[in-house]
C-alpha cells in the first residue's frame, strides 16, 4: 500500500503560508506575499494531484472491489472522554480525494488570478494570508475523519469567509455583508453543533467510519420515534443538515450568499462558488449512509425538498438581478440546490445514482462556476462596476473573457459537450427515477438556468456599446491563464467517468447517458438560451415591459421574496431591539435596581430612625427602662 502520510502537508502548506503572511503582516512586500501564497498552493496542488493519482491508481481498475477508506494519520487532539476523544486525522476515500483535487486546483487558480486582480490593493499580504487560511481550513474540512473535526474546520472556513467578505473593511456594505454571512451561518452551525451533540451522545462516537458503518452504533440499531413521529437520530441529522444548509446557502438560510459578493471577486470564485458553499453537500455526502438509512431516509426527503426549493427560488431571483455577481451567486445557490436535490433523491436504488450525480455536479460546477466568477472578475476589473446596466458589447474588448465565459455559460446551461451537461443530466435522471415533482422542478430550473445565464452573457457581451470612461482591457497573463485552464477543464471534465471513482457504496459504477432525457433537457436549455438571446442580445424595451406587466410578482422576486426583510426583522427588531434591549433594561432597572434598592432602603431606614436618638436624656432613660421591661415581658411570655 502506498504511504499517504504526506497528505498532512496538503493542508499544512497553506497554513504555513498563512502563518508567515499573518505574522509578517504589513511588513512583507506585496510581491513576496503573493509568491508565498502561490508557491504553497502550487506545492499543495501537486501533492494532492499526486495523491489522487496514486490513490485511484492503486486501485488498479478492478471493478468489483470498493475503494478503501484510508486513515493514514490520526491523533487525539483533545480528549473529551475516554470513549469520545476529539481526534484530528486524515480520511482518504474517493469523496475526500476528489474534493482535495477540486479545492487545491480552484484555490491555486484563484491564487494566481489574484496576483493580477488584487495588484496594488492595500492589504495585499493580508489578502493572501486570509486566502491561505481559507484554503487550509477547507482542506482540513475535506480531510476530516470525524464529525467534530469537520465542525472545527467548518467554523474556520466560516471565519475566513467572514474575513474575506469583509476584506474591504472600510466599505460599510462589505462589513454588513460579512457580518450577515457569519451570523447566518453561525446560526446554522448552532443546529450543526446540537446535531453533533445529539448524534455523538447516542452513537458514542464522532468517527465517520463508525457512524457510517452498517454494523456501527447508529445503523445497527432501530431508533424508536420520540418526537414528531421521528427518532432522535432523524432530528440530529436534520440539525446537522441545518448546518449544511447554512453553509451551502440553502433556503431559507441562503440570504447571506448574495450579499457575500461584496468580497473581492476571486474570493467569491473560490469560497462562494467552488468550495466552501459546497461543504454542505460534502457533509451530507459524508454522512450519506446515515442519512439514507435512519428512519428510512426521512431526512433525505427534507434534503431533497430543500434542495429543490432552493434551486427554484434562486433561479427565479437570478433572473431579475442587475448585479453581475449577484446573478452568479443566485446561480450558485441554484446549482447547489441541484446537488442537494440529487443527494436527496438517491435513497432508493442500491447504486444510489443521485449520490454520484450530486458529487459529479459538485466537481464540474466548481470549475465552471469559478470560471464564471473569474470572468466576472475580469469584467469588473476592466469596468470597475458590477452593474449589468453599465455593460454591453464587451466581446470586442475582452475576447479571452468572452470565450471562456461563454464556455462556462454553456456548461452551466447543460449543453453538451461541456461538463455541466453530463452532471446535470445525471441528476435529472436520478430525480426522475425517484420523485416526479422534484424532477419536474429540476427540469424547469434547468430551463431557467439557461435563460438567466444567457441573459447575463448577452447583456454583457452583446447588447449596445456603452460609454466607458476608459477603454476596457483584459488583465495580464496571471489572470488569463487561470481562465484558460478552467475553461479547459470545463471542456473535458464531463468525459471523466466519475461514477468509476465516486459512488455511494465505494464501488465503481458505470453510468450511461440516457439520451432521451438528455435530449429533452438540452431542449429546455436551448429554449432558455433562445429566449435570452431574443430578449437581450440587442437592447430592447421588452424585458422591462415584461417586468412591469408582472407588477407585484416582479416586485416580490426583486425583493427576494422578502426573506431578507423577515430575517432583518427577527434579528434587529426582535433579537436586538426587543430581547437585547429588554434584557439590558431588565438588568439595569430590575436586577440592578433591586440591589440599589436594598442599599437605598438601608440608607433611608437609617434616616428614618434618626429621631430615636433625640438628644433628650429623658427619652434615653425611657428607652432604657422600656428595654429592661421588655426583657421582663419577653421572659414572662416565654415561660
Amino acid at each position: 500500500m502506498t504511504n499517504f502520510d504526506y497528505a498532512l502537508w496538503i493542508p499544512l502548506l497553506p497554513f504555513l503560508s498563512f502563518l508567515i503572511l499573518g505574522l509578517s503582516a504589513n511588513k512583507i512586500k506585496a510581491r513576496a506575499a503573493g509568491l508565498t501564497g502561490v508557491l504553497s498552493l502550487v506545492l499543495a496542488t501537486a501533492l494532492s494531484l499526486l495523491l489522487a493519482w496514486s490513490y485511484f491508481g492503486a486501485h488498479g481498475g478492478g471493478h468489483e472491489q470498493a475503494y478503501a477508506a484510508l486513515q493514514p494519520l490520526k491523533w487525539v487532539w483533545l480528549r473529551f472522554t475516554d470513549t469520545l476523544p476529539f481526534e484530528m486525522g486524515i480520511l482518504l476515500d474517493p469523496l475526500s480525494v476528489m474534493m482535495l483535487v477540486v479545492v487545491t486546483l480552484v484555490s491555486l487558480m484563484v491564487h494566481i488570478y489574484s496576483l493580477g486582480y488584487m495588484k496594488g490593493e492595500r492589504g495585499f499580504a493580508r489578502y493572501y494570508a486570509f486566502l491561505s487560511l481559507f484554503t487550509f481550513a477547507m482542506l482540513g474540512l475535506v480531510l476530516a475523519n470525524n464529525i467534530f473535526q469537520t465542525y472545527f474546520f467548518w467554523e474556520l472556513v466560516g471565519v475566513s469567509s467572514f474575513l474575506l467578505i469583509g476584506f474591504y473593511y472600510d466599505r460599510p456594505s462589505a462589513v454588513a455583508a460579512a457580518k450577515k454571512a457569519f451570523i447566518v451561518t453561525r446560526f446554522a452551525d448552532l443546529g450543526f453543533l446540537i446535531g453533533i451533540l445529539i448524534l455523538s451522545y447516542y452513537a458514542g462516537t464522532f468517527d465517520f467510519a463508525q457512524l457510517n458503518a452498517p454494523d456501527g452504533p447508529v445503523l445497527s440499531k432501530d431508533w424508536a420515534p420520540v418526537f414528531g413521529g421521528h427518532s432522535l437520530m432523524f432530528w440530529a441529522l436534520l440539525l446537522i443538515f441545518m448546518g449544511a444548509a447554512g453553509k451551502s446557502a440553502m433556503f431559507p438560510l441562503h440570504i447571506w450568499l448574495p450579499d457575500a459578493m461584496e468580497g473581492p471577486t476571486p474570493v467569491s470564485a473560490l469560497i462562494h462558488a467552488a468550495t466552501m458553499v459546497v461543504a454542505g453537500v460534502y457533509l451530507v455526502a459524508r454522512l450519506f449512509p446515515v442519512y439514507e438509512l435512519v428512519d428510512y431516509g426521512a431526512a433525505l426527503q427534507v434534503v431533497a425538498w430543500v434542495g429543490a426549493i432552493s434551486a427554484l427560488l434562486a433561479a427565479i431571483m437570478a433572473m431579475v438581478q442587475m448585479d453581475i455577481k449577484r446573478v452568479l451567486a443566485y446561480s450558485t445557490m441554484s446549482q447547489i440546490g441541484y446537488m442537494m436535490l440529487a443527494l436527496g433523491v438517491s435513497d432508493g436504488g442500491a447504486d444510489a445514482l443521485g449520490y454520484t450525480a450530486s458529487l459529479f455536479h459538485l466537481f464540474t460546477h466548481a470549475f465552471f462556476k469559478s470560471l464564471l466568477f473569474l470572468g466576472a472578475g475580469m469584467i469588473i476589473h476592466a469596468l470597475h462596476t458590477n452593474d449589468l446596466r453599465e455593460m454591453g458589447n464587451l466581446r470586442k474588448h475582452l475576447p479571452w473573457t468572452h470565450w471562456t465565459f461563454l464556455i462556462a455559460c454553456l456548461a452551466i446551461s447543460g449543453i453538451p459537450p461541456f461538463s455541466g451537461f453530463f452532471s446535470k443530466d445525471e441528476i435529472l435522471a436520478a430525480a426522475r427515477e425517484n420523485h416526479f415533482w422534484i424532477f419536474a422542478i429540476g427540469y424547469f430550473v434547468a430551463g431557467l438556468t439557461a435563460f438567466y445565464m444567457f441573459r447575463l452573457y448577452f447583456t454583457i457581451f452583446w447588447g449596445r456599446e456603452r460609454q466607458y470612461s476608459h477603454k476596457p482591457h483584459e488583465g495580464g497573463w496571471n489572470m488569463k491563464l487561470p481562465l484558460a485552464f478552467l475553461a479547459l477543464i470545463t471542456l473535458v471534465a464531463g468525459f471523466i467517468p466519475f461514477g468509476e471513482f465516486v459512488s455511494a457504496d465505494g464501488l465503481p459504477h458505470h453510468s450511461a447517458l440516457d439520451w432521451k432525457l438528455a435530449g429533452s433537457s438540452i431542449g429546455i436549455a436551448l429554449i432558455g438560451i433562445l429566449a435570452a438571446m431574443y430578449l437581450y442580445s440587442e437592447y430592447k424595451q421588452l424585458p422591462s415591459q415584461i417586468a412591469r406587466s408582472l407588477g407585484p410578482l416582479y416586485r416580490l422576486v426583486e425583493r427576494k421574496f422578502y426573506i431578507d426583510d423577515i430575517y432583518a426583522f427577527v434579528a434587529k427588531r426582535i433579537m436586538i431591539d426587543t430581547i437585547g434591549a429588554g434584557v439590558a433594561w431588565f438588568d439595569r432597572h430590575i436586577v440592578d435596581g433591586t440591589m440599589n434598592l436594598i442599599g437605598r432602603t438601608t440608607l433611608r431606614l437609617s434616616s428614618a430612625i434618626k429621631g430615636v436618638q433625640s438628644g433628650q436624656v429623658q427619652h434615653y432613660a425611657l428607652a432604657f427602662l422600656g428595654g429592661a421591661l421588655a426583657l421582663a415581658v419577653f421572659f414572662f411570655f416565654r415561660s
Partner: protein
Amino acid sequence: MIEGVSIQEIMAVSVILFFIGVYGFLTRRNLISILISLDLLLNAVALNMAAINRYLHPDNFQGHFFAVFIIAVAAAEVAVAIAIIVDLYRLIHSVDVEEVDKLKY
C-alpha cells in the same frame, strides 16, 4: 423586723418609691429635680436591701452594708452631677434638661 408589716409590703413600698423616682426622672425638666428623683430611686433600692436582709436573711449583714454603700455612692454621684450642672449653668444659663440636646441624631 417591724411588727405587722410583712416583707411584701415593704418591698411594695420600695418598688413604688423606685417608680416614683423613675417617674420624676422621666418627667421633671429641672436637672436638680431629676437628681432628686434619682436619689429617691436609689434610696428605694437601699430600703429594699435593708429590708430583705432583715426579713429574709437575718443571719448576715450584707444587705445593710450594701445599703450604706449605696447611700455613700449616691452622694458621690450627686456631687459629680451637681458639679457638671453648675458648669452647664455657667455655659447656657439654664438647668432645663430639654435644652441639653445639642448632641443628637
